[in-house]
């Protein structure tokens, strides 16, 4: 092996220095912040109310038991959001004049549900519709069943309505982002409009929209907590009711941790997926 050149040695030194500097500045920042916070006059009070060790040890396992409820609500909503979002995006892309009402409806739908706070949608749908269908009794679809006026039905419906409006815009921008030359390439082979959409445009649009879509899915995972307004007990609801009778906010901090445990792996998964995708279709990855 040839000995490293003067320049290589310099680069190596430079890199080692960068690591040392980054570590030192991080440590200093953390220590300074820690000292500032713990030395402020209100800290003992905050520590007692928000970061109480005993409360944390007692409440964390209890809250963990409700984690599945949040995941379940998310899993119930997500597929419907993706399907409805895609359907609305496709409606907005139709060019057939006979389908104009569909296009107009899709535009109005996205304007409407993106324009009102999600929490209001949850309130109005979750409290309004059950009063309308109170006398209908029970329903059963594909093995799922319950009362027609159940919050377990209308809570997720409200989230699906609100989120599919956002997601449809993500899909639409993905579809429009596929360059016109791709359509020309496909049409010149004799592929029909529908075949071009299915084999050429949508597959590329999907790859493009995965990062923004994941953003929306992360928000959804957090916003399922809004359904608790309708009386469903999940992590946030349980934490706030513990807080209500103990007067201590530590369970809410524990709930925040539980949500992080859910969402951080999701983001890492997406990062891994997009990098893999890029590496597969192009020779190299510029980081």
């Amino acid at each position, binding site marked *: 092996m040839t000995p490293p050149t003067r320049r290589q040695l310099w680069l190596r030194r430079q890199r080692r220095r960068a690591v040392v500097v980054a570590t030192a500045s991080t440590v200093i920042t953390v220590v300074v912040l820690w000292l500032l916070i713990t030395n402020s006059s209100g800290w003992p009070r905050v520590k007692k109310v928000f970061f109480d060790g005993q409360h944390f040890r007692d409440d964390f396992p209890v809250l963990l038991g409700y984690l599945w409820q949040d995941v379940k609500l998310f899993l119930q909503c997500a597929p419907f959001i993706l399907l409805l979002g895609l359907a609305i995006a496709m409606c907005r892309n139709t060019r057939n004049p006979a389908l104009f009402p569909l296009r107009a409806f899709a535009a109005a739908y996205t304007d409407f549900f993106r324009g009102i706070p999600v929490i209001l949608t949850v309130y109005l749908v979750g409290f309004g519709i059950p009063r309308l269908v109170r006398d209908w009794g029970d329903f059963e679809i594909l093995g799922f069943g319950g009362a027609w006026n159940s919050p377990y039905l209308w809570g997720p419906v409200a989230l699906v309505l609100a989120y599919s409006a956002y997601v449809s815009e993500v899909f639409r921008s993905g579809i429009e982002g596929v360059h016109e030359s791709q359509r020309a390439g496909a049409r010149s082979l004799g592929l029909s409009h529908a075949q071009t959409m299915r084999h*050429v445009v949508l597959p590329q649009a999907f790859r493009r929209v995965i990062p923004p879509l994941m953003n929306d899915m992360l928000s959804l995972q957090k916003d399922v907590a809004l359904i608790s307004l309708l009386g469903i007990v999940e992590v946030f609801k349980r934490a706030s009711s513990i807080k209500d009778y103990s007067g201590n906010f530590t369970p809410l901090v524990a709930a925040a941790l539980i949500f992080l445990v859910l969402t951080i792996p999701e983001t890492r998964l997406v990062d891994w997926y997009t990098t893999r995708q890029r590496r597969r279709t192009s020779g190299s990855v510029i980081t």
Partner: protein
Amino acid sequence: MTAKLSIRNVRKSFGAKVVLDDVSLDVEEHGVVCLIGASGSGKSTLLRCINLLEPVDDGEIVLDGLDISEPGLDPDPIRRRIGMVFQSYNLFPHMSVLHNVTLGPAKVLRTDKAEARAHALELLARFGLDDKAHAYPDQLSGGQQQRVAIVRALAMRPELMLLDEVTAALDPVLVGEVLNVIRDMRGQGMTMILATHEMGFAKEIADLVCFLKDGVILESAPPAKLFSSPDRPETAEFLQRVIASGRL
């Protein structure tokens, strides 16, 4: 002898801008026609009109006796008879080379999967691309991508090929490999229309060269005539400028 493709008095405007003005052109079966002229002279638009990617405003485009520019005609069955290759390749980046080539035959011609695959591999091998069948377009050089694009068009067994400045985006050293593919197609008797800036190549391969300026075919003649003693001063001036830029 009747022409394979006959363009008669075609007009096309984008808004107020006239891009094709009373263009007429006959292409014989197995004939090769080169369109030359400055950028914006209407070469690409003419090719896009023939492939029905742009509707014409007036005139006829007759393929084997059928006016394909007739409004209301389903363009898909016509497009599958006409192959088109673009300056920017327009390969599908999410599909392997093999998948790019077999997509048309499988979905449009409903060719049996194994047969489409065998035909694609045969074509790829013919143009020295057999080792790239499972690569993705972004992993190939520009010349390789353009050869794949030509193979993709050939896989549809077209009766007519339209080549729209297929070497314009390529490194000079990669141009040759693409031109070889076109020579090969000519050897096989493919009817072709090329829009090109490669004058030397047009001279060598064309049966007929058309000089376009501002949407009008000012002069069309066999290359020996057009390149050595053009009738129109505009043609001479254009060729003079091409020579000055070292392209002829």
